[in-house]
């Protein structure tokens, strides 16, 4: 891993530095010796065919899956050794592919639970719904177009609204690195438009990693694109550069 030496001097500026990352499931390497770096305030889009290991990369970063070898550093902190909740508290937020919200709770309660206070057992017991909490929830709810749905049980929201709610639940934590897994999948055209607008407002002052299939959407938002194939980086760079790469055309865009 000779890149590590170089990286050591370089990654001061990177928010996230992934180096030599490998994970294998019973011998099958879902992610294989992967390295990439994300800058401050950068929007990185990861694309790739099904089974390329995109979601696994997010799983590895947020601690859901443990790496076999390699390192993930976030603002100089090694994430591979940390537990999921510690990673979240360090400032990494993750949205799942399917909307992952609490259907039995109201929108307000969904957001309140995500509010980064009272995260310990005693903290949760003594947590008060004070003015600061309510104002913050209200503010986020307006951002995600759900201000008039606060008392609605989350299960009654539409698919798109659920996606927004989950984004809101991340937003309320104000993470420095936001990871979104197919945020516009299954949305109607109008919802997609609104989502793009939402993303454009929330990406300010943070780095974002997005997995997306919708090329139009990718083109709209990406600063830099990483193409994954069979657990490895096939190509990396601007959208234009990636689109011109013959390897990419062969395995992904061309098929």
């Amino acid at each position, binding site marked *: 891993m000779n890149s590590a030496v170089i990286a050591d001097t370089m990654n001061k500026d990177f928010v996230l530095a992934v180096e030599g990352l490998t994970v294998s*499931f*019973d011998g*099958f390497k*879902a992610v294989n010796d992967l390295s990439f770096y994300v800058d401050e305030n950068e929007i990185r889009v990861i694309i790739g065919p099904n089974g390329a290991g995109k979601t*696994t990369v997010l*799983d590895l970063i947020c601690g*859901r*899956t443990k790496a076999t070898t390699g390192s993930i550093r976030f603002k100089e902190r090694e994430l591979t050794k940390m537990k999921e909740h510690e990673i979240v508290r360090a400032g990494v937020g993750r949205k799942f592919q399917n909307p992952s919200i609490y259907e039995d709770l109201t929108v307000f309660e969904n957001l309140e639970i995500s509010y980064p206070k009272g995260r310990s057992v005693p903290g949760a017991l003594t947590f008060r719904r004070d003015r600061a909490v309510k104002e913050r929830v209200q503010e986020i709810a307006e951002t995600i177009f759900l201000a008039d749905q606060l008392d609605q049980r989350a299960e009654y929201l539409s698919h798109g609204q659920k996606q927004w709610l989950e984004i809101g639940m991340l937003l309320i934590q104000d993470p420095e690195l936001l990871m979104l897994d197919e945020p516009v999948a299954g949305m109607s055209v109008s919802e997609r438009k609104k989502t793009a607008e939402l993303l454009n407002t929330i990406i300010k002052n943070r780095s974002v990693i997005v997995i997306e299939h919708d090329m139009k959407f990718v083109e709209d938002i990406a600063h830099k694109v990483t193409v994954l194939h069979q657990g490895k980086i096939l190509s990396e760079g601007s959208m234009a550069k990636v689109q011109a790469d013959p390897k990419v055309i062969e395995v992904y865009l061309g098929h």
Partner: protein
Amino acid sequence: MFADYSLAELGSIFVMQGFAGLILFSVFVLMALGLAIIFGQMGVINMAHGEFMILGAYVTYFTSQFFLNYIPSLFGAYFFLAMILAFFAAGALGMAVEWLMIRRLYKRPLDTLLATWGLSLILQQLYRTVFGPREVGVELPNWMMGSLPVSEMVEVQINGLFVMALTIAITVAVALLMYKSSWGKQVRAVVQNRVMAGAVGIDTEKVDRYTFGLGCGIAGVAGSAFTMIGSTGPTSGQLYIVDTFLVVVFGGAQSLLGTIASAFTISQAQSTMEFFLSGSMAKVLTLLGVVIILMLRPQGLFVIKVRR
């Protein structure tokens, strides 16, 4: 403790103790196999497993009574018929239960636990009302009793051999059924992806019903075989339930091989400890050992790592 015995004596005792361990192993496998299919393949926790076993035992009892009274000349062979009848009786009851109850609960595994517990209470009382509260004595054909002298010291129990042979036969049959037959493929397909399996034309409801029936049927055969070594009464089924579940869970729930390996581990541990310690302590230590290992390695002994 061995100072007083000659080497030959010690040798033969260890042989016999090993054999005792193997019998216990066979008993565990037989108990657990039906449950492993139901729990491992379908995710249903059948707390009434013991009662299905006891149904098999009662069937055996009535078959023996029938032979004694009407065709005593064939008494020596009744046990084979009894096992077949036990399989179908328990299997049929299992399918009925699946249809009436279990199929509504596939999405709620913890609730199957409660519902089947209720079923076990009902079956116990049903046995008590119909067959009487006392245990019944199942008379065995003479050829199944006693033991074969291998050497002067070493004797091998015939019913032990019988249980072992039966265990091997049923295990092989189940393995063939699950891994070689097209039906087995359907079962595994349903386990892995119910929706997909339905979409490609597998009748998932039928597969579920027969799988559950098969598991219960095997429990019935096990119960039939256990009339050789245990009691047959309305509440006898309760004696097996904890051991059975631990064997299945310890084996990692999803693989047949895991169940067998776990039955082997637990039976050997228990029978060895029983030899050196008192019975109660051996039991406590075995259970405790299993529980502690499960706490440290909750996925059980054998589990396939999967990508989520």
